[in-house]
């Protein structure tokens, strides 16, 4: 599904990603872990198409297609979803209005008519229940005055509505209390199937207790330095990143 080859990325002349390769197939859950500044969030932004980063080498293929020159909205239409670490506020635009616009723009890209209001409402109710969101939530301004947990739940709600092929969860666990973590993880698990894939970016093991990864990669200084299964995450949690650093430097 996603094939990244020897990716190199700079921002303002500084190289952040230094030759990264990664392959994610459908049905898989990958966790990317690593210390602060390793390039985790950069990686997710580049896959989603943020243009402030300069890609200086390598390639990203999604579903067999080079997506490097595609606009972020086109990548979204192709099935890439990014759950933001810091979702932005859009005052005056309700959660309902926003997701309706997003969904219908994606449908338009596929030459479909806007979803009939009745179907939209039904779908929203269903996904709302999945994320244990109350009704009032839907009419609030997008992310304005939301708690950390509400923001992340809203991200996963949007993911549920848009039904992407690849979901990138960028530190979705940060700022979540235990209950919210459970709800969010539960939501992701229910959405997970054989045809889609999830890439989880995180510092900690705790989200991975709920969403079990098939692969764990350690990102350090712009490169994947170690890959393994879920046990690697547990090992990291116990030993910390210094252990990896030492291994590399040795």
């Amino acid at each position: 599904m996603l094939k990244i080859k020897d990716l190199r990325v700079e921002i303002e002349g500084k190289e952040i990603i230094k030759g990264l390769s990664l392959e994610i197939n459908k049905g898989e859950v990958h966790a990317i872990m690593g210390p602060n500044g390793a390039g985790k969030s950069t990686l997710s932004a580049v896959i989603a198409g943020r243009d402030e980063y300069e890609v200086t080498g390598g390639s990203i293929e999604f579903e067999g297609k080079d997506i490097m020159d595609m606009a972020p909205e086109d990548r979204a239409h192709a099935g890439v979803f990014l759950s933001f670490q810091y979702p932005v506020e859009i005052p005056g635009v309700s959660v309902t209005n926003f997701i309706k616009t997003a969904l219908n723009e994606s449908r338009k890209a596929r030459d479909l008519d806007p979803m009939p209001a009745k179907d939209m409402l039904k779908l929203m109710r269903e996904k709302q229940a999945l994320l244990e969101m109350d009704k009032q939530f839907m009419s609030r301004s997008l992310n304005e005055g939301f708690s950390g947990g509400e923001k992340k739940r809203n991200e996963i709600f949007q993911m549920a509505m848009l039904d992407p092929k690849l979901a990138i969860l960028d530190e979705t666990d940060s700022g979540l209390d235990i209950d919210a973590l459970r709800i969010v993880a539960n939501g992701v698990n229910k959405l997970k199937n054989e045809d889609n894939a999830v890439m989880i970016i995180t510092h900690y093991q705790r989200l991975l207790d709920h969403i079990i990864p098939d692969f764990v990669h350690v990102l350090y200084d712009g490169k994947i330095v170690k890959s393994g299964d879920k046990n690697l995450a547990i090992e990291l949690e116990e030993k910390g990143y210094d252990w990896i650093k030492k291994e590399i430097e040795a």
Partner: protein
Amino acid sequence: MTEEDKLLEEVTSAEYKYGFVTDIESDTIKNGLNEDVIRLISSKKNEPEWLLEWRLEGLKKFQQLVEPEWANVHYKKPDLQSISYYSAPKAKKTLNSLDEVDPELLKTFEKLGISLDEQKMLTGVAVDIIVDSVSVATSFKEKLGELGIIFCSISEAIQEHPELVRKYLGTVVPQSDNYYAALNSAVFTDGSFCYIPKGTRCPMELSTYFRINQAGTGQFERTLLIADKGSYVSYLEGCTAPSRDENQLHAAVVELIAMDEAEIKYSTVQNWYPGNKEGVGGVFNFVTKRGICHESAKISWTQVETGSAVTWKYPSCILKGDNSIGEFFSVAVTNNFQQADTGTKMIHIGKNTKSTIISKGIAAGESNSSYRGLVKIMKGAENARNFSQCDSLLMGDKSGSHTFPYIEVKNKTARIEHEATTSKIGEDQLFYCNQRGISTDAAIGLIVNGYCKDVLNQLPMEFAVEAQKLLSLSLEGSVG
């Protein structure tokens, strides 16, 4: 040149193509402004003597005034002596079907969601639709007539209801009020008149739209609206369809009179030709709008301004009666080289008077948007309250936004709040929308409409939907 600009240009030149009717009478009136011209206008319109005197008074005041320069706008002053102040109604060429209309214009209509019938009206397609619209307007008038509501052109009102016009004309905006108001007083030929009798709730939104075939937009419009005691009216002015006019200068005057316990809701959507992308051409819109509230009366101004090259406009409320309420809700969008200096004046005279000001300025391209507002609390205005919120949204790095709030308080019991913010549409917001599959243009539409929600909510439902589309359309392609 974008399609939009091409369209604008084509349409403007197309209007010229349809041309003026060469009228011997209008040929006999030389350009320029003088007493003879005023006398001629008045006699052509068969006006009573008092109105002629009133116009001449206006001319005299006008000649004593100088063009104001305090507004934060820059333009080449129009040469008022090169204007012909009276010409017979311009006959537009009538078309046989919409197929003859510029397809680009139709595309814009479609984007705005304007119905087929309205499209035909706007483009001057002369088929049954016009007949229909006349009949609609007629039945509409009959219904209003039953309630004693008068809604007609100001010229008609001068003939049919001279006592009402005489009693109220110029009582809120006197001839000497300002340069352009004085000019308007001397030369106005078009406009609307509306009277709502005591205790009557006007059952429908009154719209100048219904008169669109009877009188086009005049250069010097005069509107007089009187809501008698305990009555209510919602009045809509303008429409979202792009309107073009060969007249560069527009100087309208609107006077509202809300008697005791009456309520007037006055909504405007203004979408006049803003000039092309290089800032050439476009309408100068210098308008004086003011209302007076008697005891426990309420006036709400709501405006969505997207057009004109230069806008100079301050819909105001004189809160004369105790417990009266004034409101001003405004969205002003400027793009390319447009300039807008707009805001309001709230003059608190009566006790326990309240005013609310919500202004949203959006500046894109190389445009400039200014909010200018005065809140004045007079000595006798015990317990007056005002709340003002002035927000500016900037797009790109070449646009400008300015806020000029004036506050004059002569009574210690006044409570005044003023909030102001300036923000930009952030890259983060756009990327977030893009990531959800929303294109940049659609994202701007969404963000701007969210930003203006408090104002748009004040508009009557159908108007609000059109206005939302208009906002998105006005800012298409302004980022990235």
